[in-house]
Each structure stands twice: as structure tokens, then as C-alpha cells.
């Protein structure tokens, strides 16, 4: 007899489904739309069963035109609705970038606050599933460049379950990035709770080095921290959770304690979120640093299809461990 009954465990996918379901039940202005979210149950199975429960008015399949249905979502939000728009992957949101940047991010400002845009746009991000160079990238850094947007990257079951409600309540457009490798991640069903969408979280406390990660790189950072612990290196892992606006305080507080930082980012290194975070550390904690800030990012190639090449291109815990070892006194550099 297992002491853990099935109901106390939950996958990341199920957590998001529960969050959507709860939102649909709580507010009749909430609806879900996107490619294949209805009949097919969502490209990643997140909305399975919701069409049967809520009907086609509120679970809406759309044509394959990101620009059209993201734009429709923005328009609905201007009209007082609380739309949840699903875009299959962040790569495809580029087709809707004009809507996201020129409309969602700006209309609130340009209307002097007359038109809040409380749209939530969910999308899958990241590599590791062998879907190659047009479905696998992490473009969060590009979108994090845009003022007027709020960007969330749930990395835990609890965040997947509870970030949606405050996102819908926020008058600004909120983008939620769901890492494709996390959907099957299983964890204890979180207690009924609320979470904030402002702060980063310390997922593991440590004193020797700060590993800064988000989304899919959080498990990578935790793996690296475990391995480092065997060498007696006590790593702290920060889960950014919110990619815009960044929680500078949490980052700087941690680096001030550990004096060393490695930033993990599945985006390409050049012009990445990791670059932004390194710069902020340099600006705000330069005199606390005992070693240069290191970055572990994806190789600057279109994500390969072949499994071994894909693995080699992604941030890996071995690379993080090697960076930390060098930082702590290897003179192999």
C-alpha cells in the first residue's frame, strides 16, 4: 500500500488545466481560445475535457492564424472579457508579435489607461522534445524586452496551478511560458493557495554560489546544485518566476550573500535574459562579486533535431557544475 494516494499527486499539465478550469468557473468573462484547444484538447493536452465541460462558446478552436486570434483576444480584453489565448509555441508567437507589441503592450499606455488589456497569452517554450529548429526555442528574452508586458515562467506545480488567477486579475497583458519538458513533471498537489506574480523564489538555499534559472532550467540548476553538494559546494538556486519585471532585489540579495553567480538561460547567449541579469548584477553588486558572473545558455544554433545534438545544445547541469568549479578556484581557465 502506497502511502501516497493518486489524488495527492499532480502533473504540471494537470495543474494548468485545473487553473484554467477554476478561472472558467469563477468568472463567466473568462474563455480559452487557440489552435486545437477544443476538439483535440490542446496541442500539449492541457485543455483535454474542457470543451465537454464548458462548451464551444468558451473553449474556442481558431484558424491557424496567430495574428488573428491573438488580435481577437486583445480586442476581447479591451471589450471587458478575460481571454486566455493559447499559442502553440513561442516560435509561432512571432507571427503575432505585431499584435503583442504594437497593440497589447501599448494600447494601455496610448489610451491614457482607458483601455486596460487583461489578456493572458500562454505558450509552450523550450527544447528537449526533438521538435527541431522551428518549435524549440526560448524567445522569452525577446519578449522580456518589451515594456508593458508581464512575463511569467512557472517552473513548479504550484506556480503552474496558481499563477493564472493573478495573471487574469492583472490589468496588463501577461504572457505565460510553459516549458515543454515540464508538462509531465509530477509533484505533490499543492495546497489551496495563492501565489504572487512579482517575486523570484529561492528553491534551494546555499552560501557559496547563486544559480539563477527560470522555467526549464530550474530543474537543471537543482540537479547541478545536488552534484555540487557532493563536493561540499553549497549552491543557492533562484527561480526567477517573473521574467518581466525582473525581481532585482532577490537576485542582488542572493549574490550579496554568495558573491558568485551563474545565470542559466535556455535562450541564445547573445542579447539574452542572462545578459540582462549579468548586467544588473554588475550594476548593483559589482563590489560583492568574488568572480566574474558566468552564463550557461543554449548553443547559438537553430535547435538540432538529432537527440544527442539537441542535448548538447541545451544548458546542462554538467556545464553549470564545471562553471562553478572553475569559479571556485580551478585555475584551468
Amino acid at each position, binding site marked *: 500500500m502506497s502511502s501516497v494516494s493518486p489524488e495527492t499527486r499532480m502533473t504540471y499539465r494537470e495543474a494548468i488545466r485545473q487553473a484554467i478550469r477554476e478561472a472558467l468557473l469563477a468568472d463567466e468573462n473568462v474563455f480559452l481560445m487557440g489552435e486545437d484547444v477544443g476538439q483535440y484538447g490542446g496541442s500539449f493536452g492541457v485543455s483535454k475535457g474542457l470543451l465537454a465541460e464548458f462548451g464551444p462558446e468558451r473553449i474556442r478552436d481558431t484558424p491557424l492564424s496567430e495574428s488573428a486570434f491573438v488580435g481577437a483576444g486583445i480586442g476581447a480584453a479591451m471589450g471587458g472579457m478575460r481571454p486566455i489565448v493559447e499559442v502553440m509555441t513561442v516560435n509561432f508567437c512571432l507571427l503575432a508579435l505585431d499584435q503583442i507589441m504594437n497593440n497589447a503592450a501599448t494600447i494601455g499606455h496610448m489610451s491614457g489607461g482607458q483601455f486596460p488589456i487583461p489578456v493572458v497569452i500562454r505558450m509552450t517554450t523550450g527544447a528537449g522534445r526533438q521538435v527541431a529548429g522551428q518549435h524549440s526555442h526560448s524567445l522569452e528574452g525577446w519578449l522580456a524586452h518589451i515594456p508593458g508586458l508581464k512575463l511569467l515562467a512557472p517552473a513548479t506545480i504550484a506556480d503552474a496551478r496558481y499563477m493564472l488567477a493573478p495573471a487574469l486579475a492583472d490589468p496588463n497583458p501577461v504572457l505565460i511560458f510553459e516549458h515543454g519538458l515540464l508538462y509531465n513533471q509530477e509533484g505533490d498537489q499543492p495546497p489551496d493557495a495563492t501565489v504572487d506574480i512579482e517575486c523570484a523564489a529561492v528553491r534551494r538555499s546555499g552560501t557559496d554560489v547563486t544559480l539563477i534559472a527560470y522555467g526549464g532550467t530550474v530543474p537543471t540548476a537543482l540537479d547541478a546544485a545536488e552534484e555540487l553538494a557532493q563536493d561540499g559546494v553549497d549552491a543557492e538556486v533562484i527561480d526567477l518566476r517573473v521574467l518581466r519585471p525582473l525581481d532585482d532585489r532577490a537576485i542582488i540579495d542572493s549574490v550579496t*550573500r554568495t*558573491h558568485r553567480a551563474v545565470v542559466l538561460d535556455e535562450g541564445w547567449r547573445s542579447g539574452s535574459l542572462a545578459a540582462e541579469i549579468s548586467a544588473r548584477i554588475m550594476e548593483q553588486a559589482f*563590489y560583492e562579486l*568574488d568572480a*566574474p558572473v558566468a552564463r550557461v545558455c543554449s548553443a547559438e544554433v537553430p535547435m538540432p533535431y538529432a537527440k544527442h545534438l539537441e542535448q548538447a545544445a541545451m544548458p546542462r547541469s554538467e556545464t553549470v557544475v564545471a562553471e562553478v568549479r572553475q569559479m571556485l*578556484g580551478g*585555475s584551468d*581557465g
Partner: protein
Amino acid sequence: MGEFLMPSLGADMDAGTLLEWHVKPGDTVKRGDIVALVDTSKAEIEVEIFEDGVVDQLLVAEGSRVPVGTVLATLRATGAQATASPPSPAAAPSAPRIQLPDGAAPVTAPQVERVAPPETIQSPAAHRIRVSPLARRAAERLCVDLAAISGTGPRGAITLADVERSPASLAQQQPTSAVQPPVAEITSPLPPPSAPVAPLPATENADRQDAMRHAIGALMARSKHQIPHYYLQLEIDLSSALSWLHESNAARPIEGRVLPSALLLSAVAHAAAEMPEMNGFWIDDAFTQGPGVHLGVAVSLRGGGLIAPALHDADRKTLDELMTGVRDLVQRARAGRLRSSEMSDPTLTVTNLGERGVDLVHGVIYPPQVALVGFGAVRDRPWAVAGMLGVRPTVIATLAADHRASDGHSGGLFLNLVDQKLQKPEAL
């Protein structure tokens, strides 16, 4: 294509001012030619080139102060084409060929920087102490000399732990260790160190004096911090050496007479040739034997300060050659016209303070050398031989040696070897 770099003219030099070019683009040079005059903080040094070729471009203008390792000029092989297109397309607009002589516009600093891309700045960086910002701050707070610490961080950088482990820091922490506040909260409870690093471009004599004092201070502090010195002394009977010298000098013209100090130098050089562990360098935790016996001869300068240029291959020079060499070195050192190889080559330094009337000297080793031999005044002293007390001219020889490279046993053998050499002056 060769590169002519700002040389390191001694362990205490990290930058130099290019005073004069002695060549221009198109000149053919060969190994050993003097191509430039460089001002270290200590002296003006004539810098030799170590490659044959044709001067291609001069990259640093006269008057510029640049870090050690900076490319000063490029060379091409004799017969090769002049650089028609610059080395890389990116460098094309920013690195025009520079014709320096006669009123040409001097190269400005930004251009020089562009010539050396960031990846290649490693050589000057190797001479700059790498310190993390946190460690630098801690060192300032604890008044710890960073030059005395070796780093264990990334690429040898000094980290907070290195500063905290240093003896100077431990000494300070002891009384207050119980109440030591976390580093983050410290707002410098101690007064800031009183000696800021002096800016070095020194043309005025007074500035030069200050700069030299600073350079000597930094180097000697580093020596005492890093080198575990041990000291030995031996009184040597010079009666036979001096009487032999007296006789042989009778055959020399007055201006060519050999002084006892040359005899002492020669004895040390011969002893060093036989005991190479005293003759060389301690670098990166290992001893490297000197490529020859190049005695550093400590010369005190008229305005104050000290310089110890090399007397090359002193063990293979006759006494007359040594005497000429020493006179020449002293003259040029005092005129500030030494050569680069003389500054960087010494493998073992000899200091003779006999003229100053002292009996003996416990020297400070010139890093990265591993030993320093000192001589005091030659005086008539009581000397016991075969149970009888007589009066003999003697000198007290001392050895300061690096305990990482040698032990007292070999140090003792070495001083005795110097003694033996002086008992057979005809062999010197």
C-alpha cells in the same frame, strides 16, 4: 610577422613610457639592436630587439605610457612586402600605418587600444594582479597588500578567501575575530591605506624619485611577503687575495687597476656556476635555473634609490673584463642609460656595502631571484690561525636565500665555495 612588445624590465615594472623610437618603418633591424628608449619608473632604458627583420609599423607614439606586453611595433621578415593591407579587415580603418618621424600626428590612445583586441590583452593582464572586486574591497579594509598574495580563483585571480587567508589579514582578525561583522555590512572601520598608488608618468626628477621609491617599496615588500628568506654569514680571510691583487695590479696601468670588489664578484660568479641552485628564479612554485651567471650588481643612484643591472656571463669574464663591465654599468646606471636585457636578466644579485663602512648586510632578495650575496667592508680584524692570533684583512660575506629553492646546507656550501675561490685568486 613579429611583434615588438613593451618589455618587462624587472619584476617591479607593469607599464613603461616609450620615450624615443630609434628606428622607423622600413629600417632593417637585427637581434640585439637598440630600437627604443623606454622610461620605467626607475630609469631610462635602451630596449633591444630580439628578432631580425624589417620594422613594419610603429604602433605606439613617443610619450605614450602603455602596459607591459603592449605591442609597440610590428616586424616583417627581411624581403617580405610591407603591410599593404592591414592584418584584419576590422582593423583597417582604425590602424592606419603610422609614419612617426618629424611632426607626424602621434597615435592617440584609443587607436592603440583598438589595435589590440580584447582576446589578446592577456599578456599585460598576466602582469596585472587579478583581484575580484570583493577581494579588492576586503584588502583595502584590512590593509592587506595584494601584491603579496597569490590567487586561487578563476585564472589565478585573488578572491576574498585568499585575502582572508593572508598572514597580514589573519594577524588583524585575531583580536576581533569574535565580533567580525559580515563583509556586506562593513563600511571601512579602519582608516583607508595612507599610500594610494602613485601615478607614474614621471618626467620631473622629484616625481621620478617618488616613483622609484614606490617601485622599490612594492618590490621589496613583495619579496619579504612571499620569499621565506634565510640568512648565513661567513668571515673570509682576504690576505692572500689582496696580496695577489696588489702584485698583479702592479703590471696594470693605473686606470686599469682591478679593485677588490671585482675579485669578490668574480668569486661569487664562479661559485654560482658550480652551484646552480643559487643562480636562477622561483616562478610558479618551481625553481628555474638561470640561463647563465648574470650577476645583478646593486648600484646606488646619486639622487637616492637603487638599481641592480646585470653583468652578463660574469663567470666567464676575466677580472679585467669584469672591472670594465662594472665601471660601465655604474656609469650608465647613474646616467640612466641601461639596456633592457641588463634590467631583466640578472640571475643572482650581489650587493657590496663595504664602501659605506658597514660590516655586513642582510639583503632582501630581488624577486624572482632566489639569492642575494652581500659583502661588508674589508677591514683588518683579529684572526686566529693555528692557535695564534694575528691581524688579517677580512670581509664578512652574507647570503640571503629563498628557503623554497634551497636549504641552509647548500647555502653554507655556497658561502664556503666563495671563500675557497678567494683563496685561489689566480684562478679567478
